[in-house]
């Protein structure tokens, strides 16, 4: 189905500022970076997580543990889709027991991705706390999930799609709203 760009929401500079603000909020709420760990949800959440860890390092020189979580195997809609999506690697190279884990993702929508992520995380151990950092919250929750740290709230219609483009994978830093086009 074709998509057409409807509106730009963030450019590269805005995205960077928002990410910096989220970083500071994380440090504020947790009174520093002690016992913190950042885990990004594939695909783009992982890159955002990496940037957050870098920013924290610039602020207080600490190097927080960083993990990548692939939630494909925990999706609740596997029976409904046409064929099995490709599974990518999960890599959590540290012990999450007792840690304060901040999950990072690009867009929060129905909340099902986050539910899968919580299921997956629990199989790795028992964190002390799990917090959620999101770049864009577009509403329309289908489960009782909420983010602790939000970059921007954007009300959207169901036929719209929020695209977060990142330099690491899309070549540019930009957030846009796309519209599904009927042909």
């Amino acid at each position, binding site marked *: 189905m074709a998509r057409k760009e409807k509106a730009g929401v963030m450019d590269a500079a805005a995205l960077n500022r928002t990410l910096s603000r989220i970083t500071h909020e994380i440090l504020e709420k947790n009174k520093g970076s002690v016992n913190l760990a950042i885990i990004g949800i594939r695909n783009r959440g992982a890159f955002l997580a990496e940037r957050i860890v870098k920013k924290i390092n610039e602020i207080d020189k600490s190097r927080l543990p960083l993990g990548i979580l692939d939630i494909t*195997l*925990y999706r609740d809609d*596997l029976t409904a889709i*046409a064929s*099995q999506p490709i599974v*990518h*690697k*999960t890599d959590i190279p540290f012990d999450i027991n007792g840690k304060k884990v901040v999950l990072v993702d690009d867009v929060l929508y129905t909340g099902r991705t986050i539910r899968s992520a919580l299921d997956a995380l629990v*199989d790795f151990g028992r964190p002390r706390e799990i917090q959620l950092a999101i770049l864009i919250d577009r509403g329309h929750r289908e489960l009782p999930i909420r983010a602790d740290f939000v970059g921007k709230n954007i009300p959207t219609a169901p036929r719209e799609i929020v695209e977060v483009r990142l330099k690491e994978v899309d070549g540019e830093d930009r957030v846009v709203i796309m519209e599904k086009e009927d042909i």
Partner: protein
Amino acid sequence: MIWKRKNLLGLEELDPEEINFILDAAGSFKEISTRPIKKVPTLRGKTVANLFFEPSTRTRMSFELAAKRLSADLINLSPSSSSLVKGETLLDTVRNIEAFKVDMMVIRHSSSGFPYSLSNLTDVSIINAGDGAHEHPTQALLDLYTIREKKRKIAGLKVAIIGDILHSRVARSNIWGLTKLGAEVILCAPPTLLPREVEKLPVKISYDFEKVIKEADILYFLRIQKEREKRSLFPSIREYVRLFGLNRFRLELLKKDCLIMHPGPVNRGIELDAEVADGPWSVILEQVTNGLAIRMAILYILSGVRTNLKKVR
């Protein structure tokens, strides 16, 4: 790419992209077995039936564990082969399984082609765990994965397959897999253990074991069965070992980074000396670990194929 096949019956019919698709997936599944909780809920509610008409401990266990770690339900059916009358009971077997509302079947049988015949009679996904001397695709896939993991590539490698090629389904599947992915395959065995016109496949043939082990990057050893001696395929186990066995004295001929592989179980003192099987070149145990990951990947991939898609075998 999108996986379209309902069944995994052999490697002969697969494209290189399809083979790579499975190998790529396996890496993610390997990681699950390193977690504290070695389970994901992916195949929850699905039922897998193990149909092993030929005795097997390792492959059956591997599939069982693969299914369970994906949270699938597994049932083991081991009908005694004496109760199998060809043709008639085939349909009966299928009907019984369908009555259990099984989603996937893993089948091992001593008769070549058995899973293929079954696949024509049912919509249930079928995974071939070894049929006669024909194919053993999951074994070859885990072998390919092991090679790729260790050597970072498959194309251009010299892989020698040594032993009773004539009766080996493992050899056949590996020949397909390796040649499709660009490796150079050398078969090393006495002429009596090579199948007729095997040179029509894109392989090289050599009877000179010591020459082969000097040049190969991978040495893949097949089991030798004593019953073959009775059929005069070779004069004696002793002579076979003298000509084609890898003992510790021949080790110095190997390339430095050579890998030694074996589908297991190893006949210590026959194909390989104990020291070789347990030594630094051997990746035999990793093959077993990778076997679990490959089988999980296959169960995952096949479970997603909807049966109302065009039935590609």
